[in-house]
């Protein structure tokens, strides 16, 4: 197949150094080479498509040349303008390093707050906590095999509900929770901003001696680790009888 003759023409772009930042859009074209000539910047090796692209056309204060036998011609001109400058060419990526904006030390943003929300989550984990009614637990536990109770710990909430923690949980109905570090979240939910969970854990539970239990309405409550007792038939009967 014949070569497209137009593709052989190499275009040059020249721009004042003060407009260097306007070159950002073409920095990712890796075929380009770039060189500095006092207060001017030269970029070479554009092909026809590139030089007519939106990215190049949107660069202001530029001068475009094309090269023929060692001479540079202004675009759309047949008179040679000058010779190809002999410069130290580097790839455009290296010549235009990425700079990050410097930190603004005068900006504090002390009054800004963010809301911590929990949202439905895609990932799955095993449930390790459960809130259920005492009556539900009572019917199961009277005939429970010891093996199903031995890994569980429990505590009583509000006189009519119990919180059971451990796995595997009992086969009874109740609201289940899964664990994210010291947090127990309703199963199926995770923090909206889960990157904050460590910071949140330090704020809510600085001594790491409690579990933080979240409700679906974004409220939470703490249960001290020492408030849990091993779940056994005897422990259940004695606690419930003492009411």
């Amino acid at each position, binding site marked *: 197949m014949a070569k497209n003759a137009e593709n052989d023409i190499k275009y040059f772009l020249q721009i004042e150094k003060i407009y260097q930042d306007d070159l950002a859009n073409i920095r990712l074209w890796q075929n380009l080479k770039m060189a500095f000539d006092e207060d001017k910047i030269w970029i070479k090796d554009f092909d026809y498509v590139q030089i007519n692209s939106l990215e190049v056309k949107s660069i202001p204060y530029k001068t475009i040349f094309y090269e023929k036998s060692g001479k540079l011609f202004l675009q759309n001109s047949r008179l040679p303008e000058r010779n190809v400058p002999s410069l130290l060419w580097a790839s455009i990526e290296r010549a235009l390093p990425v700079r990050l904006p410097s930190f603004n030390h005068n900006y504090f943003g002390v009054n800004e707050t963010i809301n911590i929300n929990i949202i439905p989550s895609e990932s799955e984990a095993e449930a390790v906590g459960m809130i259920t009614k005492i009556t539900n637990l009572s019917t199961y536990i*009277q*005939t*429970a*095999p*010891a*093996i*199903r109770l031995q890994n569980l710990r429990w505590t009583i909430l509000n006189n009519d509900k119990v919180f059971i923690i451990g796995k*595997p949980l009992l*086969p009874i109905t109740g609201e289940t929770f899964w664990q994210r570090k010291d947090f127990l979240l309703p199963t199926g939910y995770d923090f909206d901003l889960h990157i904050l969970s460590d910071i949140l854990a330090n704020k809510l539970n600085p001594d790491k001696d409690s579990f933080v239990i979240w409700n679906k309405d974004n409220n939470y409550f703490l249960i001290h680790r020492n408030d849990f007792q091993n779940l*056994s*038939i*005897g422990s259940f*009967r*004695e606690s419930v009888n003492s009411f």
Partner: protein
Amino acid sequence: MPPQEYFLNMIKNLRQNEDVMLYNNILKVNEIETEIAIEFLKKEYQNETLNFPFQSPDFDKNAALWAAKTVYISAQLILYRENKSEDIPTLLPDFQDTISPSSILSADLCLRFLPDMLVQLKFFDSEDPLVEILEKILSQWHYSGINSPLEIDKLDFTVIDSDDCLRQLYINRIIENKSLNLAKLPPFKDNILANLGIYGKEFWKEFSLETN
């Protein structure tokens, strides 16, 4: 310490600290002590029934006392042997009543320590005639001997299977001791499978491999 309380103190110490402590070589147990010991064992039994599933059987004082005496005299015979071998069967009489769920659970208060004592005895002298007698007791009261090597063919499970509470406690002990041979028997296998549910592999891997 008044001399008449050797038996009582040994039983209390056994229940509370799980140690065998003997004060003297006295094989006799007097009446007053017996009454106090029964009261003590009854209280211990009531504490344990708190942890029993289903409806707990009543306390059987004859079985509890018989078991306490058996353990006391066995310990005496293991540590201070002054009697001849022929006297041993008369010192350790069989249980006179029929064995019921109540008697099994009441006797277990003390009999559960017998397997460990048997291990000690075999360590001293495995040829001792007492070994055979204790093994016979354990095969009759096998709920207390699940953690010792039992001859499973000779065991009778009809009483165990007749009571929901005792059956569940028996199964708890099988699972706790991971006694695979007992677990595979018909009265227990299906119940254990139901107890473990879908968590069989986590709780007891060998059993779930055997049954699959």
